[in-house]
């Protein structure tokens, strides 16, 4: 939320410092596995950065194929993030604010794409929207073909990214509680008014961080996209697919484009952790 008065912030700050000062200390040996843990993440990134051909960097990332792939990636990731927000917010509201039989099972199933190999998701989508798929046959009669189109890219990204939004938003809703909503209802606000004037403004930080996470996941989508949408330049070949292709023919280009994705990911992480995450935590704590 907005910066609070000095009181809560100051308190939070003090608490953090105290716990650091009052920590009983870790055994020293834990530093070794911890260092290995950090290295496991950072070393490959450093190794890749070391291989970047800096003199050729700009021409490589601004080649027509690269720009086309980057533009497609940004457009489809934005579209699927929008879809995630529009569909995932109601889903999170239903999971957090209602109780019905089978809810636990539904929650588990909706979160399945988080742990499912994306290629399996791609196959599932193919059997839904593909020519011989569950809905695909009907759509085909109507003259709509989804598989191997840009729409398919958006659907694949939405499929894998939606759970991120639902999980993070449901958590925000649960920590926020429904006391403000109860007060609003007794003040005479209809359920729709409560949702738009109280619930949504209160969970906005959580929604933003969920959207950022979804966007990042959509941007990096590879397996489901390749399976369900293929790799047509300008239509379905997003940046991760372009990188995978270039790796065969032009490793320098692949490395340069990878660095672009790392940069985008770094920006996303910085934005979501610096602003929205602390904001969401503050809002929840208040």
């Amino acid at each position, binding site marked *: 939320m907005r910066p609070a008065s000095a009181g809560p912030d100051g308190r939070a700050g003090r608490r953090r410092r105290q716990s650091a000062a009052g920590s009983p200390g870790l055994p020293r040996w834990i530093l070794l596995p911890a260092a290995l843990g950090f290295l496991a993440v950072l070393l490959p990134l450093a190794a890749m950065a070391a291989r970047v051909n800096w003199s050729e960097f700009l021409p490589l990332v601004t080649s027509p194929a690269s720009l086309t792939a980057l533009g497609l990636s940004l457009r489809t990731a934005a579209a699927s993030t929008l879809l995630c927000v529009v569909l995932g917010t109601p889903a999170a509201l239903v999971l957090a604010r209602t109780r019905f039989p089978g809810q636990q099972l539904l929650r588990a199933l909706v979160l399945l794409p988080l742990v499912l190999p994306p290629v399996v998701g791609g196959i599932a989508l193919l059997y839904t929207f593909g020519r011989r798929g569950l809905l695909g046959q009907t759509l085909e009669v109507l003259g709509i073909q989804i598989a191997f189109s840009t729409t398919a890219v958006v659907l694949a990204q939405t499929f894998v990214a939606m759970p991120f939004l639902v999980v993070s938003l449901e958590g925000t809703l649960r920590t926020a509680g429904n006391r403000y909503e109860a007060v609003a*209802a*007794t003040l005479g606000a209809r359920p729709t008014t409560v949702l738009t*004037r109280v619930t949504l403004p209160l969970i906005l930080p959580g929604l933003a961080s969920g959207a950022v996470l979804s966007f990042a996941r959509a941007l990096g989508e590879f397996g489901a996209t390749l399976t369900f949408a293929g790799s047509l330049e300008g239509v379905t070949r997003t940046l991760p697919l372009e990188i995978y292709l270039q790796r065969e023919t032009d490793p320098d280009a692949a490395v340069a484009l990878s660095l672009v994705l790392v940069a985008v990911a770094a920006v996303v992480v910085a934005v979501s952790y610096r602003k929205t995450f602390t904001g969401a935590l503050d809002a929840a704590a208040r």
Partner: protein
Amino acid sequence: MSFQLEAEVAARGFGVSLALAPGETVAVLGPNGAGKSTLLSVAAGLLRPDAGRAVLDGRTLFDLPAGPWLAPHLRGTVLLAQEPLLFPHLSVLDNVAFAPRSAGAGRRSAREAARRWLAEVDALELAGRRPAELSGGQAQRVAVARALAADPQLLLLDEPLAALDVAAAPMLRRLLKRVLAGRRAVIVTHDVLDALMLADRAVVLEDGRITEDGPVRRILERPRSRFAAGLAGLNLVSGTVAGDGLLAADGAGGLTGTTVTGTPDPAAATGQPGIAVFRPAEVSVFAEPVHGSPRNTFAVTVSDVEPQGSHLRVHAGGLYADITVAAAADLDVAPGMALYFSVKATAVEIYPA
């Protein structure tokens, strides 16, 4: 035109029947977990009872299990909680304008109404602030304005002063006294002062049941429940009237079966259930049994000693005695000690239960 409510919530052992006349304010007193908040939640429509019926000015709020159930926003019952719960993303003015806006007023007229209500609670100068910039007392004043702006037919107050510091509470109590005058309200409170100042009538809720119902003063002067006796600062023994005394029935420490001699109310006839009350200050404490003028002497074991104003309050056998610090020092009173509580018969009032 009145408010009537009957409700059963089996899972919480809650079963209450309550009626309010127009313009009447009723205080609900009771220990923690007695069901006071359950009562408000049921009236506000936030908790669905298993069975019961509520009617507010001829409108049926609910008639369960088979009949209608009105959603909270259609009831005209506004809840004011212990915490102000101002919407943090709205300014003070828009918080107060929330109910008029929800009722369909335009932004401008809703804000005008909000200004009027803020002026009513002397908080107009706070209109432009955010809730995070208010003190606890200011926020609760704004919350009162927000509740009143909804024009409630029944105002439900859940310990509205409990979260305020001692400096802010008196001011808000005066404010509530002003705005509750002539308004129909149910106010849940722990504080006997709230009940005396704000309510026309009080009910005592214990274990999900109403155990007393009457004018606040009557309940405090002649309590029938142990809880009300505690609020009034009185010792209470219940039992059966027997001549000039009362045969103690409940397990008030070792008093069961003892006869408490006192001054019976003319209406207290032998054989009927009765109550004996006496002030802790009238109780003398001795190390040895005493005899003499018509008095009661109870052998008790001290369970606790705590300061009470300029005196010490000795808890023993379910009774209290207020004694001077000097007397306590002479007796060397400590928990676990066997003592004799003595109270003159003239200081004990006995009346029908």
